[in-house]
């Protein structure tokens, strides 16, 4: 479904990603792990169109999407979350999720120059029954997505996102990404800053998404979660892949222990 080959990205003199390569099959969950600064998030940014790569190619469902802008990728069904959480602070929880459903709105579909936007504005002002029905359906859908997080978000539907706890903002972000009805979901450290209970909950949510057949690319530092959820694990260090395979294989790979797991023996439990 997703094929990444030879991606490169340099910032000034620093090479963030030297050779990004991965393949992801439909319905698979691939985790990317590696020490801080290994280039995981940059790789995400290259795949999701936030930064243009210096070299290499990205293909999604057979289509070349190298260097495509994020809004085009969203239209193709690629959704992502951000490492430090980027909710729309002044929007309510519900509105945040509805923005995620933006590409599904019929009113935004016509791409005709000038006429398309004007039509969209007219529909927004007049709101014929079809538009109202669509909005109501999206709202129900958004509430269903939020229900995945139990009672964490549903009671706070109309609260502005800035008033939420950090963990809840991360949940809103995932709900927003799901509202896009993605074919591919990129999760960048979904459990960062969460305590054990919250992490366990999040793990359950991701497992649930995987069971529903969603293809997921996951960056995560909490290894226990990675080992449980992943079909395959890719280990990065210094901008390149140093190992890839089944969770068990990766765990026992000496290069990986050296680069990443080795830190454990130094007394540094991987912190999020």
């Amino acid at each position: 479904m997703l094929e990444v080959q030879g991606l490169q990205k340099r910032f000034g003199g620093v090479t963030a990603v030297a050779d990004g390569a991965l393949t992801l099959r439909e319905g698979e969950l691939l985790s990317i792990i590696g020490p801080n600064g290994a280039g995981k998030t940059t790789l995400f940014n290259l795949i999701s169109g936030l930064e243009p790569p210096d070299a290499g190619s990205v293909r999604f469902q057979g289509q070349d999407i190298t260097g495509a802008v994020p809004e085009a990728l969203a239209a193709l069904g690629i959704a992502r979350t951000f490492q430090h959480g980027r909710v729309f602070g002044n929007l309510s929880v519900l509105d945040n999720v509805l923005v995620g459903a933006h590409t599904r709105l019929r009113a935004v579909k016509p791409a005709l120059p000038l006429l398309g936007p004007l039509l969209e504005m007219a529909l927004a002002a007049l709101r014929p029954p079809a538009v109202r029905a669509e909005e109501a359906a999206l709202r129900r859908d958004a509430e269903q997505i939020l229900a995945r997080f139990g009672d964490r978000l549903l009671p706070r539907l109309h609260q502005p996102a800035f008033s939420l706890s950090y963990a809840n903002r991360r949940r809103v972000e995932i709900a927003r990404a799901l509202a896009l009805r993605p074919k591919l979901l990129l999760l960048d450290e979904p459990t960062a800053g969460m305590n054990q209970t919250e992490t366990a909950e999040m793990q359950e949510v991701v497992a649930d998404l995987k069971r529903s057949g969603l293809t997921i690319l996951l960056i995560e530092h909490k290894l226990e979660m990675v080992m449980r959820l992943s079909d395959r694990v890719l280990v990065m260090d210094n901008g390149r892949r140093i190992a890839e395979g089944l969770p068990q294989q990766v765990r026992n790979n000496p290069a990986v222990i050296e680069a990443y797991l080795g830190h454990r023996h130094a007394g540094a439990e991987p912190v999020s």
Partner: protein
Amino acid sequence: MSAWFDYTVNGFVIGNIYALLAVGLALIYGVANLVNFAHGSVYVVGAYIGWAAITHLGTPLPLTLLCVVVVCALVGVAIERIGLRALQGSSRIAPLLATIGIGLVLDQVVQLVWSPDPRAVPMQVPEWRIAIGGGTIGALDLLIAGIGCSSAAVLYGFLRFTKLGWAVRATAQDSDAAQQMGVDINRVNMAVFAIASVLSGISGLLVGMYYNQINPAMSFEATLKGIVALIIGGLGNVPGAIAGSLILGLTESYGIALFGTSYRNLFAFVLLVAMLLWRPNGLFAPRRAAAPEPMVGTFIARSLPVKLPRWVVPVVLLAAALLPLLNQPYLLQIGANSLMYAMLALSLTLVAGTVGQVSLGHAALLAIGGYASGLLALDAGWPVALAIPAAGLITAGLGTALVWPAFRLTGHYVSIATLGIGEIVSLVILNWTGLTRGAIGLGGIPPLELFGVDLGSVQGTYWLCLVVLVLLALLQLRLLSSHLGRTWRAIRDDSVAARSHGVGEDRYKALAFGYGGFAAGISGAITAHVYSYINHETFGASLSVLALTMVILGGMGNVLGAVLGATLLIALPEAFRALAEYRILIYGVVLLLLIRFRPQGLMGTV
């Protein structure tokens, strides 16, 4: 050939003057990530302090300079205290707005103390000129070049060899890290503001001597020219700012030689917009697609809109509709004025508040609307009732097209670009004599009428404005409650995240500017028909700042707030007519107090 030599010398001298301005702006930007919009006001303060010292105290040149240095350093410290330090931790647009407010206050204080009339600065430099290769260089030229070059040298030494200079450079690189290492950021900021203000003040004094004339209105142009030079060199790049200033000075000088004086500023602003489009990081930075966004964190103050009891709006509306029955023409006049400004505020609260594009050139939309409607009625013979909506549509289209290239910019850059675009519009109106009658202005614009019904009376104007405003406000509320509202606000809160969810920024910014242009165009058109005469100065830059103050007073993005803000700022000064002289000063102080103590405005941000 000799003329060209003179133009070169002139360009170089002007460039040196701009450099004194731009270096300060670059230093401030470097440490505080802030474009100081009060910079030109300090320049005016410097000019007037110098003038006062010479004429009242009879100081010789070195002493005059010393007076300027001391006073301007103090003003700089004050700007840092009020505009920066007091606003730590507030929304990221706050310091920028605060410097605009401080600039207004300084300009008004200068005007109240020394009157708005131009003053002649006595020449304190010998009048001899040396003839070189057919051209001449005067003592003043040499003095300006000398002060320019020596300031640069002193600054270089300061930044390079003193401990405070290191602290400044460290803060510019990473203020958090500098603070961790024990650098007192507040002291660094204060020093930088003081130095920058001193340079700006000296620049003002030298300009006064060079042109032998000063007036309080020159602050706006000085700020703009400094910013243009800064952008050419790259924000925060001190050597770049010097190079940018010389380039700007020479461009202007040669431009005047080729096309005449009235095009002078046009060159500067076209250069500005071109730089923002093609090299937003300056001539000396490697080209990058996206301009760096210095302002991180919340864009507007986080708040919930104030909820009014349901009956308030209908009751106020009814009272407003019945106001003409009181038969008080003066009151109605103020009412009609407030309503026209409220349309402008509606437009700006959408663009600046809802979408987060803080436009500083919004008055240009009024100008386009006013001229479009006036010309349609005068030259094409359209009935007023058709000319006004047509002017709204023309403004929507033209305004959006003009700002379109700036859509990829963010934060400060949007404000600077819209400021420049606004000035370009006004200069085009001045120079396109064939269409706009140029400096003579547009006279004899027919009064308001609706298909034969004369609305030229005060009552007629008032009722028309009220109906139009209510319609525009309802439409805006309707759009805000649709998917467009949340999409616009999503772009404002985090454009990257919005794009990642399929929101094409250009499309939604264009829709916002289109609707904003429509509302502002209608406002400008009605104004033109009420005034019956407009020229290129009717809708000046101060109007843009006034509109922004209204929007902030009401609460960014808040429709009711915009109407309330406009009404308060137009009606209240009328209620205290004894204070008419202090009106703009009051606006400035209101702006500053709001930003500090109620950043969400009266009605709350939306």
